[in-house]
């Protein structure tokens, strides 16, 4: 049995890489990919805690997170495609124009 500390380290590193990607890149699609990475880090941590405590509810939460992530990606990519139609770019800094 792998100690839970290892999984805490792994998912913390993955989550931080996701945060780094959101802050580092300007391409909106890569930012979406990094958000997915963060969601997966949280999922991994939740599965490992559920395995350690022998409680199924953690895995059910992971199931719900997957459903929400699927919906989020679909809506987000649709918004991105529409933004690309208007501005011919997926640069996140162009969205500065949205401010009032």
């Amino acid at each position, binding site marked *: 049995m*792998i100690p839970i500390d290892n999984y805490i380290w792994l998912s913390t590193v993955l989550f*931080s890489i996701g945060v*780094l*990607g959101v802050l580092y890149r*300007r391409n909106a699609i890569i930012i979406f*990919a990094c958000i997915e990475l963060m969601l997966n880090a949280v*999922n991994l941590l939740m599965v490992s*805690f559920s395995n350690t405590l022998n409680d199924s*509810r953690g895995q059910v939460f992971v199931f719900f997170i997957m459903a929400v992530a699927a919906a989020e990606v*679909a809506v987000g990519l649709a918004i991105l495609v529409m933004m690309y139609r208007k501005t011919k770019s997926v640069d996140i800094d162009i969205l500065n124009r949205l401010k009032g």
Partner: protein
Amino acid sequence: MTLYLFYFLSFVAILSALLVVFSKSPIHSILYLIITFFSIAGHYVLQNAQFLAAVHIIVYAGAIMVLFLYVIMLLNLNKETEPHKTNLAKMAAVICAGSMMVVLVASLKGASYLVAKPGNEIGLVKNLGKVLFNEFLLPFELSSILLLAAMVGVVMVGKQDHRTQILTNTPTTEANKTE
């Protein structure tokens, strides 16, 4: 043996996650993200969560990643000429992410005192289904409504807006007439 497998999968996951952030082409980023997801599915199998591993591969590698690749290819974004942030902003991003990692590790460090309970049956479909359809029946139904709402929303957002098209076309036709 299991521990070596854990280290191998973690290495693959972290390396490909870093490559997601740092590779130049968006297509390569998404392909590295697929590798990350597969290694996370391997971690699920290591933790006796077989059902979640299968669902993870089906949903992420099968649906979400195809959606990403489809959008990138549809928008023809496979160029390496995209604008990058300034070096100062990049350094600030690295510092922010690193300090956040330090804080998270420090706050989660005490969890190793948790007493592990024996048993490795909870990841099977039978036990998960019992919990999902008894205790979490209402959230399960609500998530189906969420997916339906997302589908309708995507269709509404992604549709070409005919009204704005007419509005943008009208001045050019009038200009043509005056010419």
